[in-house]
């Protein structure tokens, strides 16, 4: 009985959290003219999605987002992994270094926006996906370093000792043993980095132009000219959260299997 009650309670709580998202999904499937209707599903159409791609170049926006988000992770990870490892294992730059990594996360992005814009304009990097990817790489680097540091600290030191007495160099031990053992953590960190870049709005708006607009910028643009096309916005939002939902499943799967299970007593 208690179980049933507690499950009912939990379902209710879930519904409260999920309702706005479900409503967005519902609105995306409803014709614009009926979008503010109070009935649950007055009609079903894929018109909004189609128009998004046909009239608004949403396909390009989506591709842009994937390129800059994936690109920034791909660029940042090979730097973040050894850096995080160095912080975790050696006394590299001590407390000050660790704090510096953390401090970058405390800076409000707006403080960086203007200097970076000036810099980019003189370098001719505005309006380019590559430029945006670089900014996201810079944003991701300290974040990934910090997360990976935690994962590397959880890898037992003796594993490297074993690899090094087995004939590996310190770097070899890192590549052949530490990295594979920390792989679930690295995958999870990569997904988090991807999400951060995916959702980023400010830099994408300032540094980009129509050609390089990412999904958040495109969604914002839908709300301007002739009012808010709420059904279309809903369709865009639904598509925008799709990768996030996939990603969170993925993170869950990898984070639950402990890092070094089975290597030690």
């Amino acid at each position, binding site marked *: 009985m208690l179980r049933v009650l507690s499950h009912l309670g939990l379902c209710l709580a879930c519904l409260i959290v999920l309702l706005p998202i479900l409503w967005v999904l519902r609105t995306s499937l409803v014709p614009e003219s009926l979008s503010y209707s109070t009935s649950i599903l007055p009609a079903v159409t894929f018109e909004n999605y189609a128009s998004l791609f046909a009239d608004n170049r949403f396909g390009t926006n989506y591709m842009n987002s994937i390129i800059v988000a994936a690109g920034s992770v791909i660029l940042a990870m090979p730097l973040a992994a050894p850096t995080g490892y160095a912080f975790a294992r050696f006394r590299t730059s001590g407390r000050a270094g660790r704090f510096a990594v953390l401090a970058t996360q405390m800076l409000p992005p707006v403080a960086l926006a203007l200097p970076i814009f000036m810099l980019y304009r003189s370098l001719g990097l505005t309006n380019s996906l590559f430029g945006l990817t670089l900014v996201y790489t810079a944003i991701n680097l300290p974040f990934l370093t910090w997360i990976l540091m935690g994962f590397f600290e959880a890898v*037992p030191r*003796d*594993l490297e*000792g*074993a*690899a*090094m*007495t*087995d*004939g*590996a*160099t*310190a770097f*070899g031990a890192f590549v*052949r*043993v530490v990295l*594979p*053992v920390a*792989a679930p953590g690295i995958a999870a960190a990569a997904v988090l980095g991807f999400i951060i870049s995916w959702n980023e709005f400010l830099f994408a708006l300032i540094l980009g132009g129509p050609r390089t607009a990412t999904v958040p910028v495109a969604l914002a643009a839908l709300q301007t000219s002739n009012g808010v096309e709420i059904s279309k916005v809903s369709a865009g939002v639904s598509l925008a959260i799709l990768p996030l939902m996939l990603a969170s499943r993925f993170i869950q799967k990898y984070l639950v299997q402990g890092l*070094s*299970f*089975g*290597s*030690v*007593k």
Partner: protein
Amino acid sequence: MASITLENVSKDYGSGVVGVRDMNLTIEDGEFMIFLGPSGCGKSTTLRMIAGLEDISTGRLRIGERDVTRAAPRERNVAVVFQSYALYPHMSVRQNMEFGLKMRGMAPADRAARIEAAADILGLQPYLNRRPAALSGGQRQRVALGRAMVREPDVFLMDEPLSNLDAKLRAEMRLELIKLHRRLGRTTVFVTHDQVEAMTMGDRICIMRDGNLVQVGKPLEVYANPVDTFVAQFLASPQMNLVEARLNGNAGAIELTSDILSFTLPRFLHAAFAKALGRAVIFGLRPEDIHAEPRPGAVPFEASVVAIEALGMENIAILALDQSGKRELSARLGRDFSASIGDRLTFYADVARMHLFDAETTRAFPRGRME
């Protein structure tokens, strides 16, 4: 040739933690050396310094003729069995054993042959394709041993490699390791807490305490002549009985007095213990030197039986000498000994086998060979 020489080796972990202090030790080529000591005394630290996994703060380390004080682990050709096993979790048992051979560029056929042989000895055949996570603690420990064995290195460094095995497997592995050592003749350092392993496996024992080397020697020599009360108590179970006492008299007749036992020292010990005359001393007697039957030269004393641990092959009796029950001795008596708790009986102390320590420094007055 791979002897191991530590010259004034110290490990300072910083902020006042000293792992090992000024250690001098030579482990001969092909020798099986046991490291024994209480938890935290620096056994693992010493092992890790020999392996190159821990920087040596001061001092020098040589393996064979080479000074390896600053050499990388892979340049030392040592194999380590870690206290924590440290198996590669992302590799199968076979790959775990293969890793070191691969890193050294051994041909695949030779690798397979080595792994087969080791897996046979260790009973790991059925598990070769499993990941460590799917093994029991004892199986993991055997994989850790196998990974070191297949390497056939110059030096084996084993940190309590049998600690997680059940009694039967432990006895078997003990024999296997001794056989392996005979066959390969590689210098081996073996850390243990186990009395039996310490006494039976090694050519020599090195006893450590608080980062200091206390005594090195052949097992029976150390047992017969512990340098201080710490070694006397540590290297045996049950521990040596220690009783505060005084030595009085003259070179002609030395009298030992304590509130438990007073007797005249056997003549042949006079020379060894004359230095202790008039001093506060600690009298030591091993449990096996207390008997339930009279024997020549043994000193009788009365005591009550407080507890008996019947082990089948022998009986360990805890004896109380006075009513308070504070002064307790343990006695290792034959399998036929029988008594009830509370019985007051006469026991016999074979004082010819006594040990004597300075009460102030706890150092032994060396008594020479046991007759």
